[in-house]
């Protein structure tokens, strides 16, 4: 049995930790709601871009544009989005292992761009060369970062430095379910649009004004920018969600521990009192014996 003071000290430390986890929970939830706001605002626009692009792909089978023509899969570029910090359950683990297994299957030469310190450390440890130009986009996902990233990656692709471009991020399906996803961004394939439902069905050729190339030259970068921005925000929101859950569990665990320790503390305290009383009673009894 621990002494009363020891138990008291433990309760105090657990209480302090509980305060921290509770605060982290609140911070994560406020960050989450802000991220979701941003995401919802952008969502309509981005889904329209995707459905337009899908429409174009379906209705124009013979598109002759560098962004659509496969060049083999010798060199691949990955953009892996994870968090800056831990303490968020299995969030980082899930997305990074999804990325790793995809990269290992790929073979060939790979270029890995990472977002988030955890991602960088992970791939460095695994012995990959890591490009960290976009490292800091994890903490504050915004449009400017995304634009720089999209421009840089498109340049890489246009200058023929890479054959394929993948993005690995955490898709937020609902507030309780987040799944890591690997999506091929370039060359543009129909498979990347599996979750876009087209609301119209018509059979006709589309007219492009002024030319298919000019339209796609504008549309594809916008699509990529929107995708990267959405992926950053979704990953960020998923991270906050995961952290909220982890911190909520931690707070509950702390509560449970405190309750148990409180019982132990009461027992120990009671034992001390009982002990003292029996000592006093013993003393009194000895006294009475002596003087009676």
């Amino acid at each position, binding site marked *: 049995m621990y002494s009363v003071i020891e138990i008291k000290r433990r309760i105090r430390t657990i209480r302090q930790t509980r305060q921290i986890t509770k605060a982290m929970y609140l911070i994560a939830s406020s960050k989450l709601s802000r991220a979701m706001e941003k995401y919802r605002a952008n969502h309509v626009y981005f889904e*329209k871009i995707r459905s337009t692009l899908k429409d*174009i792909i379906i209705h124009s089978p013979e598109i002759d544009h560098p962004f659509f023509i496969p060049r083999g899969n010798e060199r691949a570029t990955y953009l892996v989005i994870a968090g800056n910090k831990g303490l968020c359950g299995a969030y980082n683990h899930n997305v990074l292992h999804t990325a790793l297994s995809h990269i290992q299957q790929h073979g060939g030469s790979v270029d890995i761009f990472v977002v988030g310190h955890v991602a960088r450390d992970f791939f460095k440890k695994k012995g990959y060369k890591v490009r960290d130009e976009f490292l800091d986009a994890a903490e504050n996902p915004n449009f400017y970062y995304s634009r720089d990233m999209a421009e840089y990656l498109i340049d890489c692709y246009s200058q023929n430095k890479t054959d394929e471009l993948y993005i690995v991020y955490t898709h937020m399906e609902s507030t309780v379910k987040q799944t890591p996803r690997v999506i091929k961004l370039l060359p543009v394939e129909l498979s990347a649009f599996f979750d876009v439902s087209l609301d119209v069905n018509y059979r*006709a050729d*589309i007219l492009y004004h002024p030319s298919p190339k000019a*339209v796609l030259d*504008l549309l594809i970068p916008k699509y990529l920018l*929107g995708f990267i921005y959405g992926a950053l925000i979704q990953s960020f929101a998923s991270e906050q969600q995961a952290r909220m859950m982890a911190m909520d569990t931690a707070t509950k665990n702390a509560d449970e521990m405190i309750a148990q320790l409180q019982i132990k503390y009461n027992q120990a305290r009671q034992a001390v009192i009982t002990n003292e009383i029996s000592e006093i009673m013993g003393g009194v009894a000895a006294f009475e014996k002596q003087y009676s």
Partner: protein
Amino acid sequence: MAGEFYLEVITPEKTFFKGNVEMVIVNSSDGELGIMKGHIPMVALVAIGTLKIKQNGKWREAAINEGFMEVRPDGVIILSHSVEWPEEIDEKRAQAALERAQQRIRLRRSMKEYYQSKAAMARAMARLKVKKRYNID
């Protein structure tokens, strides 16, 4: 009598406009492009300039950034980075942006910056033009 068709104008921040209209005119890369009901499916670039919408026989104008327009049998969608009604345009800010852009162009730094400044200048001029016409009315 011209028929009506459904038009949606969307920016990353909000749905700028949606409703049935009689005609819409945008600036394309080589001049104005007017769409009425029954147009064949088309995807067109939208250049920086003025967006004109005719609804219930009345024309309204807005300043529009670069984007594109998709004409479908069931309606028209215009996607752009930003679209503003004249009421929303800050004239002083647009004027300042115009001057800034002109100054940057004079500096002649790099080709990329030149294009960016050109675009910034076009945006500022489009805003000012829309605002000016609105003020006259």
